[in-house]
């Protein structure tokens, strides 16, 4: 017996409600949030540094594994201008807040930028959600330098002002050397050299008396340089950083670790608008650290596994607060403005 197709009133109402519901969802702006799978296309990442640096290496290594969890590729764009300021302005001003646009920043130097000079956008309009590594600053000399230890540097700095190469004025390692000068009375003149490679070159070629930089980049320079001081609680790389002492151990200071932390950032508006997409990003982000392929790729790219330090929104927020506080203390020296009396 065939079933009757005669519509009843109840059936009609059910069908009408269902149809209206489907139509409403299909036509609503929330359509994509409900129906679409995320991500459907490649994810753009703005990088505030040049190609070939430590941030670039970390980004490429990390995303080479992250893409397997998201099934899309990452497309980096490099905007190193004005100490990374351009990248953030482009990200906040010209990129859609849709979770398809991320920024891979070096939290330390870039947050110090805002201490020195506020950007045009609201600082609360973005946040960091995925910390990949924390890389402490260090003091290093060229292999041919007459300075063998940090004590040699301090002694010379008491006699004349020494020129110190730094990647940018507003950098955690720059703060470290200013703190050392404050503690010992040695005089240091920070010279910004625009980027890690130039900073290493400044020390290696002897144009600078010595340089300060994140220690991962210094370790990567191998025998061309010699590290003499670390701005962290411990020299995690040991012999790769010439067993250099830490500032707190050697000089009895109580300086917090001066780290550069590379992390993914995102528009806050994107999180508010697409919480489900953000959740996908967060969940898959942490899966990468547990994947043996990431460690393999990281080590293959000569990264320092000791510095890999996964962190979420909470860790990034704490880091941001700490670095902003210490930046405020040295603001006048980093910005070149006269110290207020």
């Amino acid at each position: 017996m065939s079933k009757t197709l005669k519509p009843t009133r109840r059936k009609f109402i059910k069908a009408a409600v269902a149809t209206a519901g489907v139509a409403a969802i299909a036509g609503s702006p929330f359509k994509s949030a409900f129906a679409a799978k995320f991500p459907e296309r490649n994810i753009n990442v703005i990088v505030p540094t040049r190609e070939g640096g430590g941030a670039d290496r970390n980004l490429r290594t990390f995303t080479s594994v992250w893409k397997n969890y998201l099934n899309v590729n990452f497309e980096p764009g490099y905007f190193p201008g004005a100490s990374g300021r351009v990248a953030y302005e482009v990200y906040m001003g010209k990129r859609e807040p849709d979770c398809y646009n991320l920024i891979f920043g070096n939290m330390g130097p870039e947050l110090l930028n805002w201490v020195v000079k506020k950007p045009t956008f609201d600082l609360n309009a973005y946040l960091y959600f995925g910390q990949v590594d924390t890389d402490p600053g260090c003091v290093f000399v060229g292999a041919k330098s007459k300075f063998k230890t940090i004590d040699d540097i301090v002694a010379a700095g008491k006699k004349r002002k020494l020129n110190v190469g730094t990647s940018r004025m507003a950098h955690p390692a720059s703060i470290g050397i200013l703190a050392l000068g404050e503690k010992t009375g040695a005089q240091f003149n920070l010279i910004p050299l625009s980027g890690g490679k130039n900073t290493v070159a400044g020390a290696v070629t002897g144009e600078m008396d010595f340089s300060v930089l994140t220690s991962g980049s210094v370790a990567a320079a191998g025998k061309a340089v010699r590290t003499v001081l670390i701005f962290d609680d411990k020299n995690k790389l040991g012999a790769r950083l010439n067993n250099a002492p830490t500032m707190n151990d050697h000089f009895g200071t109580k300086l917090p670790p001066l780290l550069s932390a590379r992390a993914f950032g995102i528009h806050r508006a994107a999180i508010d608008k697409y919480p489900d997409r953000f959740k996908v990003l967060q969940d898959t982000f942490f899966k990468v650290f547990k994947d043996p392929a990431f460690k393999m790729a990281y080590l293959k790219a000569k990264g320092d596994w000791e510095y890999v330090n996964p962190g979420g929104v909470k860790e990034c927020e704490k880091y941001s607060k700490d670095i902003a506080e210490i930046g405020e203390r040295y603001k006048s020296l980093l910005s070149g403005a006269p110290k207020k009396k």
Partner: protein
Amino acid sequence: MEFQFQLFGPLLIHTLSYWWVIIPSIFLGLIVGAIPGFSAANTIIILLPFTLVMDIEVGLIFMVALYCSSRMGAGIPAILVNIPGTAGAAATPLDGYPMTQAGRGQQALAMSFVASSFGGLMTTIIALLAMPLLAQVGYYMHSVEMIVVMLFGISLIASIAARDTHKGLIAGFLGLMIGSIGTDVVYATPRGTLGFLELYDGVPLIPALVGLFAVSEAFLVIEQKSILSKKGLDAAPSVGWSATLEGCTIALSRWWHITWNSIIGLIIGVIPGAGASIASFVAYQQSRTYSKTPELYGTGHPEGLIAPEAANNGVTSGTLIPLLILGIPGGATAAVMLVVMQYQGVTLGPTLFQLNPELGYGVFMAMAVTYFFMILTILPLARFMTRVTMVSTVYLAPCIIAFTLIGSFVPRVYMFDMWLGLAFGIIGYIARKTGYHVAAILIGVILGPLLETYFLRALKMSDGDIMVLFSSNLGNVLWLALFATFLVPAGIQFKKNRRLDESREAPNG
């Protein structure tokens, strides 16, 4: 670092066996070099996923071949249609394009190919043999010395101004002022950006380059039927293979000029941060200064074309020396190559030649083989490439504008840069129509920011003491050489005038 000469023979044969990688890479490099906005660096970045899965040896040979040929490629549109593909080829059209206009485009291309290949090959051999010595250059060329090197290039403005002092200097200063737009190098404070975020990094080079040279040229040629002069049009149809041969002969007869200028490129390339744009202007300026016929420069003089082409290919080998020996890339392409090598787990620096000598020497061997293949494969194409100059300007001018504006867009993917290219085109057009030299503007735009960087750095290092400029022995020697470049031509001119006067007086007396 000890030489392992015994490796050279087997390495050469081994590298030759990679012809199947080298030849396609040469053509790819030629294409990306010829398109404004593209370069070896961004092509390697685009192709990074492929490069990373390649065997390290194949990947390296591919990158080196692409790098070398892109330099040569950049000179082709510079000569034929006045569009330098990169800043390194900015000095090429000064004499290359007038040759094309005169119907000698094929000859000019042949000269450029020979100068590029032989200059590159020669500096590769020198680099291979003198690597440890050349690596030392970076230890001596600091900010003060680099200021003087920049001034060598910038003094070309003075040479241009010699033809019309006021207009030359105004154009040069305009260029320097445009070059100072952007954030300052010490405290990253924006200057002259008019609130445009796109100008924070300074005026982007490619829109300035293509705007001043190519777009303004396109505006000019719209007014004519062909980019060739009447004489050029008459001569063009009858040009055969002999023009290529003639170009080769002219270039080879100036072998000493190629050698000297490619060495200038090599030395400038070794200095981290310096690059092909500096080298080509310095080489052109040096070539003109010590020439017996400086007045011919800018009118289609072979030496004015050979000098920048030999120099910018000399830079190619130079930039790889600090990369391989010190682990510091000498330029943008070298920086990208560093990423690839790090990915492959290769440690660059002094230990490379101890732990992996085949790879270290292999880079230069690949370069030498590439230059060898380049001359064989590209030279015969000169005749066909020149045909583009026969295209009517009705079609050519819109194509030039479209291509160059796309080229302006490519490096940073900003619409703003296309408008900027157009704005520079209008500036260039007005400058040409009113007798101002666009090259003088461009020299300021390219070298101005570099000069400022080194100058501010030197001043900051000396706590503002201007005497720092004369604080180094090498710097002082370079200052003397710079003064000599002003005095020598003046002396030669004085002598010439005196002889002329004497010869005039002789019949009377």
